Structures are given as C-alpha cells and as structure tokens.
C-alpha cells in the first residue's frame, strides 16, 4: 500500500490532523531538526481529545526545503467524531524574539488536515535561534467563534 493510499484510507478514521512544517533557509542550507525529538509541535483543538501521535519523521529534503513532520490524532471528546466546520493554521517565524516571517492562514472546510509553511530566510549566515509559533483554529458549524491554540517548535539551527 502506497503512502498516499495509506493516507486516504486512514483519513476517514482519523478524526483530525494538523501539521505545521518548519521550513526555511536557502537551498544549499540545512535545517537541523533533530532537536525536535521529544517535543510537542501541535496539540488538539478545543473540544478534542488527544489519542495518539506519530514519531518525528526523519528530515527529508524537497528542493529548497527541509521538512520534519509529526502527526497528531484527535477526536471529539463526546462522540469521537469530527465537529468542526472549518480548520485553520498559520505560523509565525522568529529569529530569537524578532519576528521574521508570517505564513498565510491556511484554512479548509472540506479536509481533515491543513498545513502551512514558512520559507523566509531569517538569518543569512546562520542562526541557532530560528523557531516557529504555530496557531491552530477550529470553528463549529453555524458559529462565528474560532477557537485558537498555540504550539511552539524548538529552536533550530540554520547554517
């Protein structure tokens, strides 16, 4: 079974999946992501229960971007079912405490997952203080209220 097939098969069962990619740096540069081991990048949205997470994948290089992924599985606390009508996620990339880049807000009403990337080079020449704050929102059908939560990646080193 291919990876994409596995994904399609699993999505009807997996109640929620939010992913933030920590990306960036030049094509010739490498983002050291091994420091993310043991950290929590994303947690469940309001009204959901955490049920499982995957391990960090080994970093993979796609063109100019180095990515590391971690998946979180969440279900509605009461029914185990999806409850949102809209999911959104965005990231803000920092160099230390200084804001460097803000991703678009990625939203979906039709998918059980949504992801976003930041690609800005925040420190030409390298820094060991590059990190991303991820903001995750979910809203119910018929409600204008968006429940938001935050997660923070560890600092990584760009070279």
């Amino acid at each position, binding site marked *: 079974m291919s990876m994409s097939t*596995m*994904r399609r098969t*699993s999505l009807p*069962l*997996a109640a929620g999946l939010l*992913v933030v*990619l920590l990306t960036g740096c030049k094509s010739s540069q490498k983002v050291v992501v091994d420091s993310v081991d043991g950290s*929590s990048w*994303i*947690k*469940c*949205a*309001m*009204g*959901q*229960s*955490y*049920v*499982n*997470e*995957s*391990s960090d994948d080994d970093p993979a290089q796609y063109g100019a971007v180095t990515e590391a*992924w971690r*998946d979180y*599985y*969440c*279900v509605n*606390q009461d029914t*185990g079912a999806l409850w949102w009508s809209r999911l*959104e996620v*965005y990231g803000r990339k*920092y*160099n*230390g*405490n200084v*804001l*460097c*880049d*803000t991703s*678009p*807000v*990625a*939203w*979906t*009403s*039709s*998918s059980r997952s*949504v992801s*976003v*990337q930041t690609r800005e080079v*925040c420190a*030409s020449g390298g820094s060991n*203080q590059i990190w991303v*704050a991820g903001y*995750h929102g979910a809203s119910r059908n018929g409600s204008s209220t968006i429940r938001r*939560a*935050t*997660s*923070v990646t*560890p600092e990584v080193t760009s070279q």
Partner: protein
Amino acid sequence: MSRRRTNIAAGVVIVGIAAGGALAASAQEDRHEGDVAAAPSAEDLTAAQLEAIEAVRSDAPIPVQDVSGDVRGYVRDSALTARDERVTEQMVQGFRERHGSVDEEYDELYEALRILDPVPVVDDTGATVGYWTHNFKELSELEALTPDARATVDRLLLDQAGE
C-alpha cells in the same frame, strides 16, 4: 518511511478504538485535561521564545526584522491578527481553500491581499517606517508592489469567482 507507515497505522487503530470511547479516558490521563492545545510549558521555552509569546499575549510591540536581519520597528499582534482575519475572510468568501502542503497560487493570492491591506511598522516614536505583509516591506517597496497585487487579486480571486 516504513516507520512512518507503522506509526500512522498504529494511530489509526488507536483513533478507531478511541472513537468507540474505549481509550479516550486513558489517553487524557497522559495529557493535560481536555488537550485544548495549551501553550507549551515555560520550562520548555528559551528566554527569547518566552519574550515573544508574552509580547503576543499582552499585545505589546513585537520587534520585526527586514530581509537583512536588521530590526526595523514594531507591530502589535492585534493588528497582525485583525488584518489576517480580514484577508482570510476574503479567501473564505471566494471559496479559495489551501490544497495540500504546497499551494503556491494560494500563497501568491494571500500575499497579494496582504499587500493591499498592509500593517504599518512603526519606530519608537510611532512613525511609520515600513509595512508588514508576510514580512517587512519598505515604504517605496510596498507602493511598487501594489499594482501587481491588484492584478493578482483580479486574476486569482475576483475573475474566478465570476466564472
């Protein structure tokens, strides 16, 4: 990659069990109550991260850098968030969702809408020294980008909505 498959398969199995109500309680014991995506605990964060998060929480001025890495001024979270909510609402009204992990057209359109609704970056005196779209833009730079941004919005949002 095989490890990822194993992990996903395990996740799906566990989600299935939890959907039946068997695992949710035990899972919660290992996590904070409700798993409402609480902010990371302070001991996991560096001083710079704590400072940045506190600036967002208190809506204090957030220092921003230009492409050279120089600090150029400040923005507030309330202004950034309000602007992005306006832009996102335009995307929602246009039924323009982001598809997949790479959707360059979505990103191009989103940035064009932000160029047309920029957040002022101010210095210590409150004077506007530039604008924030997805990053810092010089005053003259933003002016130069505006016509193309309008054309992008026409092409990717308004024209498609009229089709």
